[in-house]
């Protein structure tokens, strides 16, 4: 009875753990095996004359849904191969698309050379992939030879999506990610808007770009060996040829172009023409299909302005365009692959499948910006929120703010050899330096090389979305290469360069000062109140080619106005407080009320049983009492007896007779299964007020071990809530006879001392009915004799005493009446004298209760 009760909470805990484990298993259970791609080699013909044979290494993923489904072409990034796209392809195929991914010419196991998405080469290849798709039975056709097809890809793969869309009218929707609008501008940017011919060479990114395509740059992305993949170039030789180490897998004309511009650091018109052939800028008005442009905020290679230019060009044709700014980009940070996948798939669902109605849950809005969303409360990791506006406003925003900056004209020096340079970002290693969300910046300006202009502390937070502009003057002579940047400067911490972006410019300095309007890099950043905006113009930057000749210029402000674009329409999707914030506690209160009320009905029904006024003067009436153990065995069975005033009743029985169980029911500690107990006519239920007329000592003492004997009794009496003068504490303490020990902690007491203290506690308030369970245990003979006197005297005042004992002599000498129990049942009840008299009549020998008792319970002597 006791063990199962104690184990119940344990069982509940185990159940809880099992539930948790079940949820965990459910969440982590492996999903069905992904769709398997079929590797295929697709021969294509390309080149300016269409006479060059190239074999593209591709993988086709039939739609999991079966039938003829829309197709998606997935293109990989620079330096990668079709292997990078496998998991995305499988996921799209599961979503019901026929997916074809391939290694572009010059990459992976495809043959041919890299032509930078040239219309003569890569674009022709992809058009033939579309032809190939049109012949597949798994692909839905719009017309003969015209499959329903979308193209998606990142960086190099994003550009081929754009270029193919321009050259092939069969493409129905594209999702180009982190890619370029004008490759010449990306490599030779100029923030004054004078074009790439005047641009500053982005030498580190260019080096990585051409290096990784060359194969000499071991990017670790699984580039196969040149010789094995391109038999035409190396003939299986292990040692690369001079041409191979010079140009890798690049087309020679591209290789030559790069070598020339990288050496001089200046773009040539020929180079610009070549790069623009591979850029959407060369095909204005040709891309007329729904386009989702996803660009990275941490991207110094293809900054947000490229997506902006693409968006404007495509929107001009009337085609639907949406723009999303990711948190990460080529410089690292969070690339949000899951979100990008969902958006991409959602775009194709809408424009290829035709479901997912515009403005529905699948659509995020025309302009999405990933922002810092604080920390996940569980893991404390930074999380992103996607703020959304209905319209893409471009880089000049909807509602520009103007902040006044100030600072004197300052001299800046270009160090000889351009070293040491200032640092904004370190291309290719951005992920290592930059913290997630761009809150940590590795930016560094060299003293003497930078002019600083700062605003007053902001009075209110300012959310900038777009490319700020500032007007400066450059004094001096000759051509100056400068880098303008906008810092977020707070009082204590180092100033932050948002996303590590700079705006390079080349300007001819004059003694009178050349005024230039500088468009700073497009950003999305919240400048907090009390922060200052700091515009810095420096002469060097690690990522760019700068002149080697030493020079000194003076930089001043042409206008104190710093124009900051904003987009006030951008807002986090209205989540509001989750519905369950209110619903859960309310439901819990309802459940709790139900739990409590359902439980109460039972007890109240019992308590309402009327009082038996005819029994009001009878201390105890037990009738038909029964109690089962948990195992069904009866501890007390059909017990009935009555105790009248002034009696000292002995409750006699061997161990296990049910004496203690009866006494527990008498105290309201356990509920009877059948029958009832009435004390002074009132039915005993847990907490029945009539129990206040009962003093009890059952199954050993119960004290707070850290309190003294006196404090225990005092606290006990105060717990009853009855007046202190009713306690008769001194009389009770006298009975306990503990003397000085009363003021010691109970934990120091012997068993006998506790026993006496417990009897004293039972007598507190001189209860009308006193119930003592084995009171003589642990007492020495004089104390036992004293106890007898006390109990008899107690009953003489009209009170009643019930004593249980296994000591027969004890009962014989103390009690006036006796109840004998055996195995839960009443065996005999009556005055002790009657019982002894009956026994004498039976066998004629000495009247010993022991003999009578053994007779009664049927044990042989």
């Amino acid at each position, binding site marked *: 009875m006791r063990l199962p009760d*104690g184990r119940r909470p344990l069982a509940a805990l185990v159940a809880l753990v099992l539930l948790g484990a079940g949820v965990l298993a459910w*969440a982590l259970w492996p999903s069905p095996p992904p769709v398997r791609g079929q590797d295929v080699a697709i021969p294509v013909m390309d080149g300016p004359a269409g006479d060059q044979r190239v074999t593209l290494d591709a993988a086709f993923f039939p739609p999991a849904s079966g039938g003829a489904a829309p197709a998606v072409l997935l293109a990989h990034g620079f330096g990668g191969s079709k292997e990078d796209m496998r998991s995305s392809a499988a996921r799209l195929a599961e979503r019901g698309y026929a997916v074809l991914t391939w290694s572009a010419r010059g990459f992976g196991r495809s043959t041919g050379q890299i032509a930078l998405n040239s219309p003569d080469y890569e674009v022709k290849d992809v058009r033939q992939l579309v032809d190939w798709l049109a012949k597949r039975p798994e692909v839905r056709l719009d017309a003969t030879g015209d499959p329903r097809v979308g193209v998606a890809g990142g960086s190099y793969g994003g550009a081929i999506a754009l270029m193919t869309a321009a050259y092939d009218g069969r493409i129905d929707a594209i999702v180009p990610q982190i890619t370029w609008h004008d490759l010449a501008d990306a490599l030779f940017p100029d923030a004054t808007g004078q074009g790439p011919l005047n641009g500053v060479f982005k030498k580190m990114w260019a080096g990585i770009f051409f290096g990784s395509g060359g194969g000499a740059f071991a990017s670790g992305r699984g580039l196969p060996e040149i010789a094995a993949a391109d038999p035409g170039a190396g003939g299986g030789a292990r040692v690369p040829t001079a041409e191979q180490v010079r140009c890798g897998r690049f087309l020679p004309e591209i290789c030559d172009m790069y070598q020339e511009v990288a050496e001089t650091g200046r773009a040539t018109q020929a180079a610009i023409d070549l790069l623009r052939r591979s850029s959407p800028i060369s095909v204005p008005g040709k891309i007329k299909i729904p386009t989702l442009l996803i660009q990275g905020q941490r991207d110094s290679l293809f900054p947000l302005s490229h997506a902006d230019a693409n968006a404007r060009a495509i929107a001009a044709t009337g085609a639907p365009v949406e723009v999303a700014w990711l948190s990460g980009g080529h410089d690292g940070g969070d690339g949000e692959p899951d979100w990008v996948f969902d958006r991409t798939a959602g775009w194709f669902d809408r424009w290829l499948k035709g479901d997912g109605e515009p403005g529905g849950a699948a659509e995020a809005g025309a302009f999405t910006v990933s922002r810092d969303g604080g920390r996940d409360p569980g893991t404390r990791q930074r999380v992103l929120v996607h703020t959304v506006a209905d319209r893409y406003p471009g880089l000049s925003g909807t509602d520009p703010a103007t902040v006044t900056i100030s600072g004197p004209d300052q001299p800046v020096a270009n160090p000889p050899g351009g070293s040491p340079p200032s640092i904004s970002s370190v291309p290719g290693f951005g992920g290592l330096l930059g913290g997630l969300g761009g809150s940590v910046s590795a930016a560094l300006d060299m003293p003497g090389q930078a002019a600083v202009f700062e605003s007053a502390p902001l009075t209110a937070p300012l959310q900038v979305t777009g490319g700020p502009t500032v007007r400066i003057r450059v004094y001096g002579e000759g051509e100056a290469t400068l880098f303008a940047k906008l810092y977020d400067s707070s009082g*204590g911490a180092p100033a932050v360069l948002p996303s590590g972006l700079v705006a390079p410019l080349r300007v001819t300095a004059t003694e009178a000062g050349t005024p230039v309007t500088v468009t700073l890099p497009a950003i999305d950043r919240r400048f907090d109140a009390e922060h200052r905006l700091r515009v810095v113009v420096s002469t060097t930057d690690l990522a760019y080619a700068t002149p080697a000749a030493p020079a000194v210029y003076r930089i001043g402000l042409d206008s104190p106005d710093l124009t900051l674009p904003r987009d006030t329409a951008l807002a986090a999707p209205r989540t509001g407080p989750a519905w369950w914030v209110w619903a859960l*506690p309310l439901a819990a209160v309802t459940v709790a009320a139900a739990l409590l009320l359902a439980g109460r009905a039972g007890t109240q029904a019992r308590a309402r049983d009327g009082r038996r006024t005819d029994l009001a003067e009878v201390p105890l009436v037990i009738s038909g009492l029964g109690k089962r153990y948990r195992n069904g065995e009866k501890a007390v069975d059909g017990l009935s007896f009555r105790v009248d005033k002034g009696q000292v009743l002995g409750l006699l029985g061997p161990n296990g007779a049910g004496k203690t169980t009866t006494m527990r029911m008498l105290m*309201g500690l356990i509920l009877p299964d059948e029958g009832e107990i009435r004390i002074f006519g009132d039915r005993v239920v847990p907490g029945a007020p009539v129990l206040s007329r009962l003093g009890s000592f059952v199954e050993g003492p119960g004290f*707070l071990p850290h309190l003294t004997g006196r404090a225990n009794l005092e606290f006990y009496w105060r717990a009853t809530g009855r007046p202190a003068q009713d306690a008769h504490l001194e009389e009770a303490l006298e009975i306990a006879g503990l003397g000085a020990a009363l003021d010691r902690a109970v934990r120091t007491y012997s068993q006998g001392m506790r026993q006496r203290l417990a009897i004293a506690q039972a007598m507190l308030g*001189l209860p009308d009915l006193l119930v003592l369970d084995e009171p003589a245990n642990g007492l020495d003979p004089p104390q036992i004799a004293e106890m007898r006197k006390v109990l008899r005297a107690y009953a003489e005042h009209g009170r009643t005493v019930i004593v249980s004992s296994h000591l027969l002599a004890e009962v014989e000498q103390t009690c006036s009446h006796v109840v004998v129990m055996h195995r839960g049942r009443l065996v005999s009840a009556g005055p002790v004298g009657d019982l002894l008299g009956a026994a004498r009549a039976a066998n004629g020998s000495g009247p010993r209760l022991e003999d009578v008792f053994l007779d009664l319970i049927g044990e042989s002597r």
Partner: protein
Amino acid sequence: MSPLTQKSQDLGQAPGYAPGRTLPLRVEILRQFKRRRTLVMFGLLLALPWLLVVAFQLGPQRGDQGSLRLSDLATQGGLNFAAFALSVSASFLLVVAVALFCGDTVASEASWSSLRYLLAAPVPRSRLLRQKLIVALGYSAAAVTVLPLMALLAGTLAFGWHDIRVPGTGELIPAADVLPKFAVVIGYALVSQLVVASLAFLLSVGTDSPLGAVGGAVGLVIVSSILQAVEALGSLREFLPTFWNAAWLDALAPQPDYSGMIKGVAVSVTYSVILIALAFRRFRRKDVVS
């Protein structure tokens, strides 16, 4: 005796007895206060901030300005130090303290056998639970409050009274602005410990082993914290009882975000109300055999 008895026949109770006057809060507070574990726990909570101060003073001084972790900012001033002390203790020490006060309260009476004498006094069962719950929650609240307050005092004496520097961004927020938020933080820490308190209380009602009740509640917190690190569970984690326990950090940000704390309060209240209702239901019908 008889006139008194006569007068009290109405309810059948002894003279002067009224169920609503049994086990007054004052008595229960005193009964619990003199216990060694109560005193030791409060001693530990009061000493911990000083221990931390000594640890920071003795440890090698790191002039690392760039580091913006809460632990590195602890020496910035009293407020920073108090936030740090709360963050290091909320996940375990305070959980143990709360589980101790709430898990021990009924189970220890059962193990001392004093429970049956209280019930036979009689203290009505629901009233006994109510009074014990109020006192246990009171001690828990005192434990959760006393630690940050002592840390504020110790930190201010050791590192001075300065504005709070926010971890992560390093921004400064004036001390006067933060002080009311600090009250919110402590209040939230209290509410978020309610789940532990009510679970410990439920276990306490069901067992006569105080350690079992305390350990069970602490065990649940451990299991829940492990589960919440499993990102695969997705938004299910939001309903784990410990998921929002650190959400109070959001209140100290320059732009305080209370949405996490509101969710945390909702989850905490939900669990607690049900667990406490279960405790009352269970105890009302339970056979007290210890």
